[in-house]
């Protein structure tokens, strides 16, 4: 625009025309526009700009919010990604905070210490300008080192259509957060519609057992039974997962790490699979801890043939083979692959056994799609160390208060 030319008063356009203008803008421009005035924010909301997916990563190194519509995406990070060209964009007031932001081609980046409330403020702002009614949360990743009260956080997302993947992990130990998580796990599973879960934390529970005629309290690994009802599970600590659970497995993908299952359990599993006609299971991976697998016991009494799948494939592409990162990791085939076919429906499974991992693959559930260009990793510096320390202090003061608020009024925040 010529600097001398008067501007074009878009707020004088009719609603249909204004909506049409907004729908030609990408998410970053819409975000910028939302800071011009309250009235424009209202118009943006009315324009019904539909957001397809939301990714929320409560992580200790670079907490991130990402939204996507059909042809554009927008990222907000608390922290500056390393090696990403960006320039100072100014101050943006969201909720009760004013953020000094850097802007890159992906979105906005700022340094801020209060991740819980900062996140909430940004998400509420986004919800005030875009339409999230049918938005799917593709990834809700919560690092319990950062988030002490997981229930309050999850409560914010319970009205979303679906959580495709929930990832719970812990970059450094936080007992209060782990306790809160274990106490609220049932609530989380019954309030979020989850399709895939990664549990990177373990828990213990006390049970009363009878020993020599006396009742004693014993600590046992906590059972997370609710995960057995969803489609894709990846458990970093699966001490609680018994042979009985394995034989009645009703999921599509199961990745069990640090498993106590025995070679006999795995042999029984294969035999059970051979006689069943369930076609649900696509992928089973069991990694045992502290011992080597015995292939002879696992394959005892089974008619295994050399595998043919690996002639054309060097790795298996299970899109759900993800751990604490949202990026799927292909399984690279070892040399000694075998296959077995069941007589009930002629389904063939590939079996491979490495020194500590048993791998049972029936079919790929779609290719691993090339991941979106990811932000470069953030390099930790002195500020980050200070930031973590401040976050710890903040959590110590605030954790219990937030938890009490959540218990008192679990519907205290409503996005919609």
């Amino acid at each position: 625009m010529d600097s001398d030319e008067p501007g074009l008063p878009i707020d004088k356009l009719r609603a249909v025309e204004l909506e049409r203008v907004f729908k030609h803008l990408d998410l970053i421009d819409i975000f910028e526009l939302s800071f011009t005035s309250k009235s424009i924010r209202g118009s943006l909301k009315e324009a019904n700009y539909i957001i397809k997916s939301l990714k929320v990563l409560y992580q200790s190194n670079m907490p991130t919010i990402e939204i996507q519509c059909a042809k554009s995406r927008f990222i907000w990070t608390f922290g500056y990604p390393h090696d990403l060209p960006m320039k100072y964009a100014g101050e943006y007031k969201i909720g009760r905070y004013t953020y000094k932001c850097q802007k890159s081609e992906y979105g906005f980046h700022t340094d801020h210490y209060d991740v819980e409330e900062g996140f909430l403020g940004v998400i509420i702002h986004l919800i005030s300008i875009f339409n999230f009614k049918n938005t799917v949360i593709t990834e809700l990743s919560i690092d319990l080192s950062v988030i002490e009260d997981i229930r309050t956080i999850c409560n914010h997302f319970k009205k979303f259509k679906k959580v495709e993947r929930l990832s719970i992990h812990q970059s450094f130990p936080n007992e209060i957060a782990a306790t809160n998580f274990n106490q609220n796990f049932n609530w989380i599973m019954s309030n979020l519609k989850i399709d895939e879960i990664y549990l990177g934390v373990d828990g213990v529970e006390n049970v009363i057992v009878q020993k020599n005629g006396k009742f004693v309290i014993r600590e046992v690994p906590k059972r997370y039974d609710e995960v057995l009802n969803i489609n894709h599970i990846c458990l970093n600590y699966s001490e609680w997962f018994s042979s009985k659970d394995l034989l009645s497995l009703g999921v599509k993908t199961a990745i069990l790490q640090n498993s106590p299952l025995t070679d006999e359990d795995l042999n029984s599993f294969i035999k059970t699979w051979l006689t069943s006609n369930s076609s649900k299971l696509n992928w089973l991976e069991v990694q045992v801890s502290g011992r080597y697998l015995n292939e002879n016991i696992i394959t005892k009494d089974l008619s295994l043939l050399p595998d043919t799948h690996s002639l054309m494939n060097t790795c298996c592409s299970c899109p759900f083979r993800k751990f604490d990162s949202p990026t799927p990791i292909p399984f690279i085939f070892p040399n000694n692959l075998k296959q077995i076919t069941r007589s009930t429906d002629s389904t063939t499974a590939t079996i491979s056994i490495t020194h500590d991992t048993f791998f049972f693959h029936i079919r790929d559930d779609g290719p691993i799609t090339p991941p979106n260009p990811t932000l470069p990793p953030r390099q930790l510096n002195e500020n980050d160390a200070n930031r973590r320390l401040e976050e710890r202090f903040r959590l110590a003061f605030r954790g219990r208060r937030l938890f009490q608020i959540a218990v008192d009024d679990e519907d205290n925040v409503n996005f919609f």
Partner: protein
Amino acid sequence: MSVENAPVVDVDEAAIPVEKKMYYRFESNDKKEFRVSELAIQQSETLNRLVEAMGYTSEDVENKPAIAIENIDGKTLKLVFQWCEHHKGEAIPVDDGSVPKIVEIPEFDAKLMDIDNGLLFKLIWAADYLNIVQLLNVSCKKVANMAQGKTPAQLRRVYLLPSDEEDEAAKRAAQEAQDPRAREVEEEFEERKRQGGNSFF
């Protein structure tokens, strides 16, 4: 103004196909008359329905008064009909609901819209009023392009957006204009505050 005396604006008549003999006559709100081919009119859902409902014959078109378009001036209507003639016969795009819209502004359209913002504003308004989907698309795209890479402060200048404070002030002024007593009450309240009273009553 009689039909004979009305100024006739040329609208790229060389491009009018031989097989379409019918030209409708339209008159803007400043009494400028335009002759537009039947095929070009199809780009506008509003005008297309109107002429279908009128059921004019070739004689009617010549003998009856031009169809008046009350809300659009001649300068804007000329641009609209130039656009319609250039794009006649083209399919009308259907919105697939995806955002942001991917719209390329053709060279002809870019030249046509190389106009001041006041006229561009009227063009958008006319495209919407006459329901010319693709013209509305390209004109809105042009307005959207003005926002690319701008900060909120720059956007306020480009789009002449009042700040929240200016909005509030304008709202207050409008209220006060309606109710002069409100201003008096506010002044009285301010005066009492200055005198140190913390209660109005």
